[in-house]
């Protein structure tokens, strides 16, 4: 934090050394009756504030030696040990100031960093709340309007309005469930050995219109079984929403590769894939693809990313060879599993 590049440190060091020399020369020129000891602190303090701690220590030594040279020129002591003792005391004084100042600087920088981080988190929370409010408002507004139209007796066929109420309420409910899921997924995972084939099969059972095939034997991974199943559910649902050709079932492939640091689970589809600018943001909450024909909550992939992060890994997107999308999750091996 706040360490300048070496080149700048050296050039500032020269300026500070020059400052020490100037103070030394003025100290020598003004003679033995005037003390200039405190002025040595100016270049030292300046350098510590803008440079580094170690530079401050070097400058303290240089200042003490300079002061010793000036002192020895003007004063005669009964023993040569006296000026050495005095210079050592001076050195201790310089060093103390330099170290304290360096400490204050680090502390201030750390606080500034924490404040920035807090401000960033606050902003993220505000954005999150705005998104939740907007995304909940839309379906609830539909319900309110449909009820209003039913009441006014001008809605014509009530079936349409009931259908709107039904679908909109379901959407609001799904959003709330996904929000809870996202919060839950970010917690510490309860790891155990999970059979991925079983997890993928059970996730696929809960979704209509998806065919899952596994590429090679799937490893067992040491992870939270509930979260793993949720990841598969969300990735399959994503494929149904965005990668399904009209009227056909979505086909996804699941594979798993073991690496020294963890397992990489991949779910691929043969949909249209993502635009480069979508690839950057697809794992962020409330981001929906432009190609979907149904209305997702925009939280599915965010939950997947949160799940990977909770397992010390990450989630990312790759264009699939031969067309389509490949979503990958790294599950880091926990220390207990090694």
């Amino acid at each position: 934090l706040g360490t300048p590049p070496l080149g700048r440190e050296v050039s500032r060091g020269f300026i500070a050394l020059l400052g020490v020399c100037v103070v030394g020369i003025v100290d020598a020129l003004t003679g033995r009756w005037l003390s200039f000891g405190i002025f040595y602190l100016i270049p030292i303090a300046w350098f510590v504030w803008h440079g580094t701690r170690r530079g401050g220590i070097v400058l303290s030594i240089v200042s003490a030696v300079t002061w010793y040279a000036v002192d020895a020129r003007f004063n005669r002591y009964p023993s040569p040990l006296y000026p050495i003792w005095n210079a050592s005391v001076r050195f201790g004084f310089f060093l103390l100031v330099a170290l304290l100042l360096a400490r204050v600087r680090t502390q201030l920088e750390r606080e500034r960093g924490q404040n920035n981080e807090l401000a960033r988190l606050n902003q993220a929370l505000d954005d999150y709340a705005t998104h939740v409010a907007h995304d909940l408002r839309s379906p609830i507004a539909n319900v309110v309007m449909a009820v209003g139209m039913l009441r006014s007796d001008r809605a014509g066929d009530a079936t349409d309005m009931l259908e709107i109420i039904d679908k909109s309420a379901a959407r609001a409910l799904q959003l709330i469930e996904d929000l809870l899921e996202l919060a839950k997924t970010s917690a510490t995972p309860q790891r155990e050995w999970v059979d991925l084939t079983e997890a993928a099969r059970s996730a696929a059972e809960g979704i209509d219109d998806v065919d899952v095939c596994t590429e090679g034997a799937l490893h067992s991974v040491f992870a939270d079984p509930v979260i793993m199943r949720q990841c598969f559910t969300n990735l399959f649902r994503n494929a149904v929403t965005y990668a399904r050709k009209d009227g056909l079932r979505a086909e996804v492939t699941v594979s798993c590769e073991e690496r020294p640091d963890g397992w990489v689970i991949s779910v691929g589809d043969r949909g249209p894939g993502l635009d480069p600018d979508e690839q950057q943001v697809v794992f962020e909450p409330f981001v929906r693809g432009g190609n979907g024909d149904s209305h997702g909550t925009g939280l599915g992939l965010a939950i997947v990313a949160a799940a990977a992060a909770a397992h010390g890994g990450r989630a990312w997107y790759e264009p699939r060879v031969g067309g389509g999308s490949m979503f990958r999750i790294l599950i880091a091996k926990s220390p207990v599993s090694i």
Partner: protein
Amino acid sequence: LAGRLIIVDDDAEARTLARKILEGGGMDVEEAAGSQEFFALLERTGDPDVVVLDLTMPGPSGWTVLNKLRTDAARARLPVVIVTSHDDVEFKAAAKKAGVKHYLTKPYQPWQLLDAVRSSGLPPTSDPWARRR
């Protein structure tokens, strides 16, 4: 002659609601689920009398649609009514700056949408929606 409108909204239920209201007002309504679909529809069927536009949509947003319309010399004056869940001062100001006269926040009253669409230059038609003011 009934006016022709295009509703651009990614929310299918919201589209159906707006369509019911506008058709009840004797208007000819078409729907687009996103910006790409909207521009494809424009190419296919020509400019409508009024566009009813949602702002937040996956992919290119309503703002992109608005910008594209305003920078196209032939469509710069095409009336746009914004219908959105964002009750936001900055959004309203930005929409006004883009020449939008009517900004409705969901949920709205049927007569509000009909009023907005009519005062955007549609010919008068019979009004089955009693105003509740």
